């Protein structure tokens, strides 16, 4: 599959990246060479192979249970007072570039 300049623009938009003109040229070349190399995966017939999203399923999931109950190892009791402490409000704001003391402040969302 060949990546075009239009693809680069589209994908950069999805990823919220503003690429410079030089970067776009490089990106087009690099993506194409990498995707070219990745093409070899099509040599393998994987129609009957189950996908593996992560390793933990092998030793965490309980296959005898239905749906998300399989992942009981990763869940906690659904109780109101079972929550851990959260960060203090001012600690949570400490690293922000801009705050008003209560909220994070950002530039306006819509330009009129």
């Amino acid at each position, binding site marked *: 599959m060949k990546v075009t300049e239009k693809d680069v623009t589209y994908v950069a938009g999805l990823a919220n990246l503003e690429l410079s003109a030089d970067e776009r040229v490089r990106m087009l070349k690099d993506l194409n060479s990498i995707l070219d190399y990745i093409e070899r995966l099509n040599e393998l017939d994987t129609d009957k192979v189950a996908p593996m999203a992560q390793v933990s399923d092998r030793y*965490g999931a309980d296959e005898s249970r239905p749906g998300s109950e399989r992942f009981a190892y990763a869940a906690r009791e659904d109780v109101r007072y079972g929550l851990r402490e959260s960060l203090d409000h001012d600690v949570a704001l400490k690293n922000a570039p801009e705050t008003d003391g209560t909220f*994070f402040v950002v530039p306006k969302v819509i330009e009129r």
Partner: protein
Amino acid sequence: MTTAFTIESVRNAIAERTLTASALAEDFYTRIKQNDPEIGAFLILSKERAAAKAAEIDKLAEAGNPLPPLAGVPVAIKDVMVTRDVRTTAGSKILENFVPPYDCTAVSRMEAAGAIVLGKLNCDEFAMGSSTENSAYHPVHNPRDKSRVPGGSSGGSAAAVAAGMAVATLGSDTGGSIRQPASFCGVVGLKPTYGRVSRYGLIAFASSLDHIGPFANTVKDAALVLRTIAGRDPMDSTSAGVPVPNYVAALETPVEGLKVGVAKEYFGDGLDPEVRTAVEVAIQKLAERGCEIVPVSLPHTEYAIPTYYIVATAEASSNLARYDVVRYGYRARNARTLPDMYRLTREGGFGMEVKRRIMLGTYVLSAGYYDAYYLKAQRIRTLLTRDFDEAFKKVDVIAAPTCPTPAFRLGEKVNDPLAMYLADIYTVTANLAGIPGISVPCGENHEKLPIGLQLFGRHFDEATILRVAHAYEQARG
């Protein structure tokens, strides 16, 4: 270089009162001051934190109380693990002034065991790279040959141990980022089983492939650190509830009768002849110790790199979406609207390799391409894992080179991303399958560059790879 400390030699000296933790920490800061300007391993020094911990250990020693297992041991942490109140950058400009409000579990376990955290170590930005040349700050020079890379992405972690600036360090390994630098710098590096060590507090790159693990001078030290950091953590739901064995006690068990697999796919084209010879000699030493050498095949190995670069970049594109600079991070000042702010900040805050991987990851996950790339890669991941499952029915460990070559020169591969990616060829398989892997120094080439022997093991069987690595280390001398 002065005699290398081990974890036990430090702890014993402090217990016997021939050394204080405070004096040792000062000594290591002096070493860092003298050696690091030419190496560049450290990004941040945490002197206050180190002094406070050292004072605490010294008080215990003075009172004659029993000392914790890593008492007084000077360690350092790859800057992708958060440290409360100590700047953490992930090697990126976007987190230049980020001061985390909490500790990575692995770090707090090290400190609870008495370790002295000297500082944070340089790495490729967001752990993306194989040479540490992608650090937004400065590269790291290999202590064994300063014109060369230390490897990556945990280049600082490997170099600090190799140069005697820390007794042990923590790094992270997503496609080989602990084992490859260990091999390039001539130290021991261990990637545990996925889920063996909590990832809480590890700045995420690819969540199904990331692992935290130790660098050390000896296999025994690596085993000691693993024992300290391993184990279920309620803060990481992927951390396994598998009990942590006493890796150190198991080390001395003789390896006679263990079966060591040798896979032809790891000894093919592209393998430097001197590396091949050194690894074959090492395997021969294991045979002399009574191991049975068994040929095995891992037939899908050639598909590992493309699979890895789909899965890792896809997960990275998702993980790095959080850097919107609303709640933390460097913010571009010339943005008039929120969408502008996101784009300009991420453009200015991320380096080229990070952008490249985000682009590739976004592309392979985008509508129309998800099945062809990401889903396909997940199926191949199953095949790669089955290769290992089959092999481990016949053998207990698999021996291979860690890297196809020794350390390359700084600047040599920066302009060819694909060439850089291909250097990971022997390491990515263990991340995709989640099995443990260790790299142990096994000689040098004619330019005195270190070469690494890699041992793979079954899931949660770090004890066996540590045992075999230890036996090899003893035989090698």
